[in-house]
């Protein structure tokens, strides 16, 4: 059996959970897939998850599990996993996962392979692909020791809409857990958003990046409009930040940020290797450059060889439709 541990906060499901369920379904090969959802009150979220074609959705409910703490989760989940005895435990590689799963796996003495992007059969077992050395290499890793094996998957490793839906909602059950409040050593306060914080491009879903093809600072306005039309953050190649047209924290590349958004649109960027290392992990890359030979096209999924000053307005119009 494969157990997916879904993630929710105050009754809102983290979308990345769907991706992990999709992977579990692909991995299953006849084995049942179950989804566990820990939290304070997870009834509605469990119902939502039950839409997936899975054997069962398991509610792991306890008032001590909301808000999340690593101690609480480790206590509750080690008990439930022990009981359900799955072959694999899969999770999305979120910040919360990173916070407790190593502890959980260590407590149970089981293997944990993190940040995976794919799996493939390897001599009767499964090997998991994960980046190493900052994405310069990809490792095929096999977990060792007794089951269950914990595996976390990078956000974007699968498509959420690849989840196979069931004909009827899956059964929702509740596994009772006891979590002694006193055993939880962390006292979390309410989350907050920083009033004025630095942009974190590594978190952006879509990025529109401009390069020297934009020619002048005044023209940045056009790039801003393109970004707005895509619902994207604006970023740039080094010369743009060097010139002070955009702040340094918006620079993508070897001496700037490394990003892997769902969509990366490069406007007038040639694609020097120092830029590419910062963005080539993006899921979908669009390049618009008037030089059809520019190296950026080698990493692009979609390319338009043309003048950005003609194409950008057309794009804005098209996206506005």
């Amino acid at each position, binding site marked *: 059996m494969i157990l997916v541990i879904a993630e929710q906060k105050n009754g809102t499901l983290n979308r990345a959970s769907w991706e992990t369920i999709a992977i579990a379904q692909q991995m299953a090969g006849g084995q049942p897939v179950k989804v566990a959802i820990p939290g304070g009150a997870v009834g509605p979220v469990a119902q939502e998850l039950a839409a997936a074609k899975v054997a069962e959705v398991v509610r792991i409910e306890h008032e001590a599990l909301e808000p999340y703490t690593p101690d609480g989760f480790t206590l509750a989940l080690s008990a439930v996993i022990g009981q359900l005895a799955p072959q694999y435990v899969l999770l999305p590689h979120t910040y919360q996962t990173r916070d407790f799963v190593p502890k959980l796996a260590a407590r149970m003495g089981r293997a944990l392979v993190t940040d995976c992007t794919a799996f493939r059969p390897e001599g009767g077992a499964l090997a998991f692909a994960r980046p190493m050395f900052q994405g310069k290499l990809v490792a095929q890793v096999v977990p060792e020791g007794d089951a269950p094996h914990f595996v976390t998957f990078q956000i974007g490793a699968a498509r959420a809409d690849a989840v196979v839906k069931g004909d009827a909602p899956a059964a929702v059950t509740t596994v009772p857990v006891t979590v002694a409040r006193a055993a939880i050593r962390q006292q979390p306060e309410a989350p907050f958003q920083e009033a004025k914080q630095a942009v974190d491009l590594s978190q952006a879903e879509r990025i529109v990046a401009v390069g020297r093809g934009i020619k*002048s600072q005044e023209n940045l306005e056009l790039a801003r409009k393109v970004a707005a039309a895509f619902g994207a953050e604006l970023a740039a190649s080094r010369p743009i930040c*060097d010139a002070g047209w955009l702040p*340094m924290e918006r620079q993508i590349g070897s001496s700037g940020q490394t990003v892997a958004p769902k969509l990366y649109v490069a406007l007038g960027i040639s694609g020097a*290797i*120092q830029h590419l290392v910062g963005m080539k992990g993006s899921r979908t890359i669009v390049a618009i450059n008037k030089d059809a030979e520019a190296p950026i096209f080698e990493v692009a999924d979609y390319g338009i060889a043309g003048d950005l000053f003609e194409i950008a307005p057309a794009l804005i119009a098209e996206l506005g439709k």
Partner: protein
Amino acid sequence: MTSTVERETLDVDVLIVGGGPAGLSAALKLSQLQKRTGGEPLSIAVLEKARETGAHMMSGAVLDVSALKELVPDFLDRQAPLASEVHEDHIYFLTPGGKLRFPITPAPFRNHGNYIISLNRFVKWLSEQVEAEGIDIFSGFAGREVLYDGDRVIGVRTGDRGIDKHGQPRDNFEPGVDIHAKVTIFADGVRGNLTKELQRRFQLGAGREPQSFAIGIKELWEVPAGRIRPGTVIHTMGYPLNTEEFGGGFVYAMPDNRVFVGFVSGLDYVDPMFDPHVAFQRFKLHPLVRGIIEGGQMIRYGAKALPEGGWNTIPRPYLDGALIVGDAAGFMNSMRLKGIHLAMRSGMLAADAAFEAVNAGDASAARLKRYETLINASPIRKELYPVRNVHQAFGHGFVAGFLYAGIAMVTNGWWFDRMTGHAGQDRIQTIARYYTRRGRQVPEGATQAVKPDRQVTFDKLTNVHYSGTRHDEDQPVHLLVHTEVCESICGPEYNYPCQRFCPANVYEIVTEAVGNRLQINASNCVHCKTCDIMDPYQVITWVPPEGGGGPQYDGM
């Protein structure tokens, strides 16, 4: 700001600036002398601008082990990283599609008993020998200016760290340190920024010929098995250079299918549109080289200038409180393309002179002159004196130069004695003179530029990526350029030659509505020093960036 801050000071007996073969040999020799004579241990400090010793080492390199044998007689037991003994030696004269092999290898080019090394690895090893003696090597610290008491050198100030690109101190600002020494040994390599300062201030080159330089560009390759036997050394002349240009290529084969491929271009070319990086690309495309590297992988890139003037250009290497060693002084045999052993030996001799001076409590120039006496009696002179005019001879055309190289060996070099050189960079001609007036077409980019195929040939930016270069981007530009000269004079006359002679694309001309603007991508800089040497109006000054910045020449 710099005048008011409180600075750390450090007092040592001998300060060595530059942790290359010259500086480290001086350090090691000093501690050996100390051990032999006993007494109070000397305090010795070595400053090196690289993050770790060896990181800025970029050389061929075929090592003549003569000096190493004296300095570390048991170097084999101590596992000096010598990649391979030289087994085969070839010299070719290249034509565009073919090659002529020199039937015999002239004596000075013979490499029997020499070793192919990665100077990066070798220097790391040498620094371990030095540290084992308890000597402090401060890597990540650049000597920024020389400290004087009157006209006596009393030490060096290291660069301030933690200054942002507008020149303002950041929270972690750390002022440079004043290191005071009884004797300071300058081992800051080719066109060392501190040695340059000394040369200017004290006219150390007076009565000598001006130095001339070359730039060497090299890649480390992993090639398919069986292409070339480890221990093979190939030197080439001719293609892709024409007869007015000096230089040549090399291929050195190591075990594990690793090969160094490099090209040296004299910085005394006349064509303002010449680009040494292009010459290197064309060299790699020659069937001889291409046949070795094609299908392999380029794994490291680097570039560095080298002094080529030889014996007649060596400045006075001693002054009150200071000595100059290695490439900084120009101890380099350009005909053999070898300087490591000379750098080491000059360091050892300087150690000798410094040791004596410190013990005598007298570090005056008169006392330190002994260093020059030692050099004149050493194998350094024996090697360099006979070939003292070779480079200048090449300045008179390739054929003359090569003939000369042979004759010089036989005649001890008297033949061309009156052939004076001029600073090589002065030979570059204006666009008008080289092209327009002779009715030649000015090329659009560099002369005979090749389109990089990203298999065998690369553009500069891709290459720089493979040099491992990193600088903190938030620091002042370390290339001080009088940009007004660029736009008003150098651009129109020479068509911005800095774009071409810089092997790291630091200088870029950006065309804007208001005209051309020189964009300096300082963080690309691989510290080769070519711009400091080659710009026609001498308006570029290379100063060390924040310590620790620069290339990372693993295995080079």
